């Protein structure tokens, strides 16, 4: 599969192929990063672009500054304890930069 860099964000922190870890945090509020990948490691599959921050939009604010959104690829056996599928199975999720740290 060829990674795409649709609408790249020039001020981004991560590039395609780099390893990242999702922050292990449980802040209150509207959070769209699923609990099951928090603390997990994956790789940047593509840069989706920069978008107004949904965590701010959710409370009536303008979502500025925009946040860079990435598609991150995780191995299923890493995400799910006791996963019994094929070792190459992956799950891809779109996650904002402020939820990611270098791994």
């Amino acid at each position, binding site marked *: 599969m060829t990674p795409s860099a649709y609408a790249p964000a020039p001020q981004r922190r991560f590039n395609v192929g780099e390893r990242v870890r999702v922050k292990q945090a*449980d802040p209150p509020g*509207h959070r769209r990063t*699923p609990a099951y990948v928090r603390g997990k490691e994956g790789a940047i599959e593509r840069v989706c672009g920069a978008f107004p921050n949904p965590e701010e939009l959710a409370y009536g604010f303008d979502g500025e500054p925009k946040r860079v959104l990435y598609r991150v690829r995780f191995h299923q056996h890493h995400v799910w304890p006791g996963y019994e599928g094929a070792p190459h199975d992956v799950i891809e999720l779109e996650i904002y930069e402020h939820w990611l740290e270098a791994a």
Partner: protein
Amino acid sequence: MNRNPADIGGETMGEMSGPIDTVDHGMKFWEKQANALRNTLTGSRVVRLDELRRAAEELGSRYYALAYFERTTEALRNLLLEKGVFTQDALERKMDEVRRRYDA
């Protein structure tokens, strides 16, 4: 950890899990009206989709008790009350008025 509808992946028990309903239930007339209202209000940016998602999450366990259009409509009502687009009193007066109209 706080569990929200976005966290449903991988759940095997509890109110968030279970088989996916793949039956097309169609749309009742009021559901079409409610959906049109929601689209009009997001289109004109009176409310944002992210606000509606947040308001739906704030329904708590009611989120799982309500059908889809009941859930989105209740979230929309709460959001419009929160924003002061109308008051609870005004809403109840209007609902009484509409009820009387249908009883006639």
